[in-house]
């Protein structure tokens, strides 16, 4: 792989990372968010895979493939099971709460969150410049993009109400952090990365169980309503 091809593919991967994060902020249907999350996981995995292929580092390549399986297939797959399929394709009698397919009533309107996102990205780029200046290489140049994804994950975490959206937000945040790590250090020790991913898997499993329980018990997963339970 030539250095030029490596650079452009790396940038494309970070572009997809950013695009999918914007898409998650933009859209309300949860299925779409989960699919975008899968795309994001694939883009994230592409970063170490590309690095491994470029530098013939088999270890990095392996990490990348592991990340790909986990982030692009397993986690979104688990999440997808939490979201009921669209109306009309299934037996209406099987439908549970209709509100579960969409993020309803986020704390910040779509247009407003998009504007905040724009500000967050600009901030990430501005803050990331000193980092890039330390060691200007193709991969560090892309680090501010990953930083922007982290900020967008935080934004999502703060503004969304549905439990599934919260998981999506958390995964976006984690994808961003992993991307920053891959881009800045050109490869995280496998143990650390796998450990983090296992944590995540655990988190998703726990939440899935919880969500299922909540749905059975309260008929919905609006976090605002849970607040009332607490009181």
């Amino acid at each position, binding site marked *: 792989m030539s250095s030029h091809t490596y650079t452009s593919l790396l940038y494309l991967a970070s572009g997809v990372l950013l695009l999918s994060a914007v898409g998650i902020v933009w859209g309300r249907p949860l299925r779409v968010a989960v699919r975008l999350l899968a795309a994001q996981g694939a883009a994230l995995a592409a970063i170490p895979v590309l690095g491994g292929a470029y530098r013939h580092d088999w270890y990095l390549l392996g990490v990348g493939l592991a990340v790909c399986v986990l982030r692009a297939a397993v986690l979104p797959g688990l999440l997808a099971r939490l979201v009921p399929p669209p109306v009309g394709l299934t037996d209406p009698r099987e439908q549970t709460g209709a509100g579960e397919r969409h993020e309803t009533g986020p704390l910040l309107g779509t247009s407003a969150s998009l504007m905040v996102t724009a500000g967050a990205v600009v901030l990430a780029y*501005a803050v990331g410049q000193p980092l890039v200046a330390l060691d200007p290489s193709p991969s560090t140049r892309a680090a501010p993009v990953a930083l922007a994804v982290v900020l967008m994950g935080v934004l999502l975490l703060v503004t969304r109400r549905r439990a599934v959206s919260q998981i999506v937000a958390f995964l976006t945040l984690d994808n961003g952090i992993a991307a920053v790590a891959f881009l800045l250090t050109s490869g995280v020790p496998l143990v650390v990365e796998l450990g983090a991913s296992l944590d995540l898997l655990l988190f998703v499993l726990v939440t899935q169980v919880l969500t299922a329980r909540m749905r059975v018990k309260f008929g919905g997963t609006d976090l605002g309503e849970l607040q009332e339970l607490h009181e």
Partner: protein
Amino acid sequence: MSTAACFAGVLGGVSLSGAAAVAAVPTRVSAAASGLATAAVGVTGLVGGALAVAGDLRPAWVGWLVPLSGASFAADATSGLFLLVIGAVSVVAGLYTVGYAAHGHLGRAPLAVLPVFAGAMLVVPLAAAVTTLLLFWEIMALTSLLLVLAEWRREQVRAAALSYAAMTQLGFVAILLGLVVFAAAAPGHAETFPALRDAAVHLGPGPRAAVFLLTLAGFGSKAGLVPLHVWLPKAHPEAPGPVSALMSAAMVNLGIYGIVRVDFVLLGPGPRWWGLVLLAVGALTAVYSVLQAAVATDLKRLLAYSTSENMGLICVALGTAAVLAAAGRPAVAAVATTAALVHLVGHAAFKTLGFLAAGGVAAVTGQRDLDALGGLARPMPVTTVAFGIAALGAAGLPLGCGFVGEWLLVQALTHAVAAGGTLLALVVPLAVGVVALTTGLGVAAMVKAFGVGFLARPRSEGAQRAGEVPATMIAAMALGAISCGVLAVAPAVLVPVLSRVLPELPTGTAHGPGPALGTLVRLPGVGGSVSPALLAVAVGAGVLLALAAARWGSRRRPAARTAALWTCGGGGLTSRMEYTATSFADPLRRVFDAVLRPDVEHVVIAYAQSPYLLEKVSYRSWVHDTVEVVLYRPVLRAVAAAARGARRAHTGSIHAYLAYGAAGLLVALVVVL
């Protein structure tokens, strides 16, 4: 070769003798006298502008005119450009006044003041010392205030004039303070412009920033920059037609002139943050004003907000130029400077025409409310075409005279992305977005003004009775329309002037060639070209081709006919069923609800028998100037409260006042000791 003082004297002579003539002649011809005098002042300004651009006006000092300091005059090409613009507007507005005032719309006093106002505006760019500038600035402000008060019997006029008077005096104080700080740094406290220019080097960064901010506030308030714009959308619409044109197309330019003269030429080139401040203020002004224009329902208020918007765009261009000059990119800075100047000239042309057409509509129909206009295309075809040309220019679309300026601005911004480091790369795309949103909303505002105001069918008695305006007014509008057309397709006419102005400005072309404004508008050092003339030809050819295509099969076509409007089978349409300006702007009002914060009153009265049977539904909405509500009202309330407190001290007793005096004396003594 004559001196600038000589020329200023001629201007003064023409204006004052014009005023005297208006006062002396019988009422019947006073309108003609005033209009012709104003036009004569304008012609003098044009001549002077041409001389100034050619460099034929020597600086001079007149000792007797102002006590102590004397008055100093000078003219360079920059002054010349402004003289030309203001002179041209005065000629057209003067000609228009002849017919407008003959209808009995103006009293003798305003008619007498009109040439003096035009004269004062023309002397301001000639001033070459602080005192001279301030003197004529104040004369200009006072005469324009008198003209705004022409229809003083109406309550809104008096309120607008009060707001104008307060803002213009505050602006004056800001300019005064700024220039005083500036002059204090000059050796021997000299106050002529050459002395100030030398003094700028010795000014510390603190005072320098203070001078910049104070003069920006002072001149910016004249140009209608947010948040000091609040007087503009009130005063400009309430003035009579030709005065609105003079104020909105000529006087606001002097605000820009002040910024260019003091902050760029005398004080500059400044640090990068000056440019960023200008950019931010300009962007805020442009978007905020165009948004207000898009939801305005008063035709002249809409045009006034559009003035503010265009001044904002010019300010964005100047800011871009300053930032780029500070970043060491003179070629692109020159493009931005050219954009500012071209847009300034274009704006003067289309805004004159727009206000003249709107003035004619207001005079004939007695209505300025778009919700009550409509159907003017048939009774007033010439006015309609004139307003259409002006609106095309104001919308910034190709074939209109606002296009080249905005195109240059976008080009300058495009090439600024990669020019100046991280900050610019983040700020400039946002600025492009702002300019684009401004253009888009400007199109919406102008489609509304033209489509609702002039097309469709009349919505009120006044609009129904409309008839075409007199010949002199038509002639004036024709002049305006011709200049719009020339500027739209051949911006090359500005080359002789701009090629002399640009080297004089620190952001101009002292270091290289400026943009080529020939048939093909090309930019130096960067790719990108456009040709307004050839584009117009291409659109013409396309239209002809489309016409030819539509003739296919016309021989076998049944004869064309007219028919009643399709009303879904429901019978005749009335004008109450039409879309109004309010309903037209409703989607935009809702989208920008958070910024505009409209007051909505929605009353539904049902019959007692059933909530489903409605007796009456009424809906009203008002859009206030948010800046005024948020920023000014609290200040005004505080001032009023302080005044009430002070009033309590005024008991009317002579002893009390003597006691205040004694107490004051005691306090002073204690402080001194």
